[in-house]
């Protein structure tokens, strides 16, 4: 074992015991990159597909996982990092992140209700502190989803939370976001002004202000697209050809459709609208999914569930008073494909916390891990890149100082593409980004 790896091991030991003492030796993590073969040993290694090795080894090289399992040969002359009693999991994946854009509503294009031709990648601030906080919380890949103020919003974009810029972007399955509940009408900036300043609906601004209006925008956009596709008729609602071309991809099944739905009645509207145009879809957030389990199971609709939010006196979901805390357990029992999201949460309100709450309210630990790794990656079409510790996949992993998702546990080392981006002192390693 080299001096550097001893230093890392010592730091990990400090982190495990929760010592507040500042370590005297800085880890030599910066030099750890390039073609060197690195082995991480730990008491537990979770591969992400449900397999657990106790103890286990992960071999990394050139930013990829070479092998993961038990009793693997340690590299001769390579670097061996002994993580002792720590637990290694794949890096976490959030399939419906709302962080990292240029400002709170920075990705909100208010000029049209139908913007499927726009790309959320153009709204991402790759230097945002949000990404550093996500990485520190063990989240290594996020799918930044379209903003909710347009009825048919933009394509989402998948990015790594750290690493060199050239390696940050991932090719997710193309996916357009739709918001049918009250949010699209409520968030429209042209609707939010007091009426004396021209707010509210008028002949000059005809955004939908109701559920009915939002559903009609959706329906009309697809009707216009079909007419344009079949007979070249331009939209009489001013939809740009680029927007209709993007919706044509949705009709053809080449682009996925993701419906932001929170309240129970919107699950029904979504199903009805999808049937009118023969569309497949997934559900984002799904706050009241527990009230529509049969509908979701019958149609095998994937649900990107969350976040549930805790307060001192009671648990309450974002918009609904209905308890949502047992929903992950219920989704699992019903065989509905699902993953978890923290939406705009990071740190203690982040994805690990969502997994922890799901476990506390009945979801088994292995399934909770899948719900924030491989299952989330699969819903985004990223499961051949991230979400598991398997040969050829990106070497994105988290070393936890205890059982993952327990309140007492935290990430003590986070690797993206095999590079340490968060060190055992919780510091973000900018030189690796």
């Amino acid at each position: 074992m080299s001096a550097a790896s001893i230093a890392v091991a010592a730091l990990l030991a400090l982190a495990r015991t929760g010592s507040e003492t500042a370590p005297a030796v800085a880890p030599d993590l910066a030099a750890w990159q390039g073609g060197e073969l690195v082995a991480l040993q730990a008491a537990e290694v979770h591969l992400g597909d449900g397999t657990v090795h106790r103890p286990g080894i992960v071999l990394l090289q050139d930013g990829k996982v070479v092998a993961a399992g038990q009793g693997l040969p340690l590299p001769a002359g390579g670097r061996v990092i002994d993580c002792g009693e720590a637990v290694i999991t794949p890096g976490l994946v959030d399939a419906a992140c709302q962080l990292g854009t240029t400002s709170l509503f920075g990705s909100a294009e208010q000029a049209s209700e139908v913007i499927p031709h726009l790309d959320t990648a153009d709204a991402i601030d790759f230097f945002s502190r949000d990404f550093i906080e996500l990485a520190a919380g063990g989240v290594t890949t996020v799918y930044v989803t379209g903003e909710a103020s347009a009825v048919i919003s933009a394509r989402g974009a998948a990015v790594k939370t750290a690493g060199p810029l050239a390696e940050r972007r991932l090719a997710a399955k193309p996916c357009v976001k739709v918001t049918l509940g009250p949010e699209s009408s409520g968030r429209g900036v042209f609707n939010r002004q007091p009426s004396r300043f021209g707010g509210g609906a008028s002949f000059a601004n005809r955004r939908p202000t109701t559920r009915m209006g939002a559903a009609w925008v959706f329906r009309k956009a697809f009707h216009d697209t079909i007419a344009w596709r079949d007979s070249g008729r331009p939209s009489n609602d001013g939809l740009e050809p680029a927007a209709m071309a993007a919706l044509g991809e949705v009709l053809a099944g080449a682009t996925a459709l993701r419906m932001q739905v929170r309240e129970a009645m919107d699950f029904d509207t979504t199903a009805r609208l999808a049937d009118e145009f023969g569309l497949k879809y997934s559900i984002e957030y799904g706050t009241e999914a527990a009230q529509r389990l049969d509908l979701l199971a019958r149609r095998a609709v994937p649900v990107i569930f969350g976040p549930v939010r805790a307060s001192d006196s009671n648990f309450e979901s974002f918009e609904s008073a209905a308890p949502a805390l047992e929903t992950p357990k219920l989704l699992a029992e019903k065989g509905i494909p699902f993953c978890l999201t923290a939406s705009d949460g990071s740190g203690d309100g982040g994805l690990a916390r969502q997994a922890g709450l799901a476990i506390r309210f009945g979801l088994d630990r292995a399934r909770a891990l899948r719900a924030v790794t491989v299952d989330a990656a699969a819903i985004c079409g990223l499961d051949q890149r991230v979400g598991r510790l398997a040969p050829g996949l990106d070497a994105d992993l988290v070393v936890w100082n205890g059982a993952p998702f327990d309140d007492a546990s935290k990430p003590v080392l986070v690797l993206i593409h095999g590079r340490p981006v968060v060190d055992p002192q919780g510091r973000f390693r900018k030189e690796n980004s």
Partner: protein
Amino acid sequence: MQPLVHFALALALPPGGAAPAAASAAAGARVAALQPPPLALRVDSIVQPDGAIGPGGWIVVRNGRIESVGGGAPPAGAAALEFAGGVAMAGFVDVATVLGAGGQLSEPARAFTPEIAAADAFDGDHSDFLAAARTGVTTVGLVPGASNVVGGRIGIVRTSDDDGRGAAVAGHGPLRFTLTEEPFGGLRAPTSRMGALPILREMLANQKMALAGSSLVAADTADQIRIAVETFGAAGRPFALLQPARIDEAIELVTGKTAGAVLGPFDLDSSERDLRVSSLLAAAQIPITFTANGDGNALRLTAALATRSGLEARLARAALSATGARLLGIDGDAGTLEPGRRGDLVVFDGDPLDLAAQVQLVLVGGAAVATEEEAR
């Protein structure tokens, strides 16, 4: 909106910086007889094109242009002026000012207005220009404002006309772009960077002609700078960054990718972090120029503070004139003291970076700018 049509219109505007057409030999001889005698200035030091302070000598200006630099004797019949201790350099070029604008320089009707030219909002009689000229500024860019993603053509303005009064438009300069948040959020499409970038990319990809100089792109944060590098790089269009405050987080991204950066103004309240940007860019071989809304004294303060924070003095002097002229695409005409360039120069009684140094003489197009006292 049909931005591409407007873009074609913008390209139809004549470029700035063209040298005057040569007259025929016979006409030239008649005109020469009517010309005033050449002006010869003797100074102790001359700032070289690279910004270094070199040996002095005679500088001869004839017919509004520099004829020779550093000669040992004035030509016969020249009006000779000697400046003991004098340091001559090319007149300052501030590429990003709003000097003498008649009304707003932002046209809020649309977010993409490449057809707009700031020179059309130019008031030549405005006292701003004479004030700028007296502090050593001989050329300014009149820039469209920050409210549009594509703001329009920069006006290139000489701060004094041939009679030493007012100012003259020398042409239409490069386009000004804004990639900060300023163009967004109003009741106008698009309301977001996400909505704007596809339109911008289409405009940049569809125009084939090259405009003189470098597009001036306002970008503040590291990510806005990234967007500039990617968007203009993909279109193969040269660009300079306007006031890129957080370029220190994106040095690797821009190295070798940008034509330069317009920094400042700096003053005694500027943070050390902001001041150090100049030397960081210089170390990365990125050309820099300074802006201070056409105030030569503020430009010198800006340059001096950048020097205090690590910028090589030579580069600070080049940043006051040569780099700005290059970014505006008029470096064949202005920005350096070389034979053939316009007679735009300023003589100080010391190093221009020494704030105690005073302006002794300013020539714009070979004509002396009257001091305040002389004008009274």
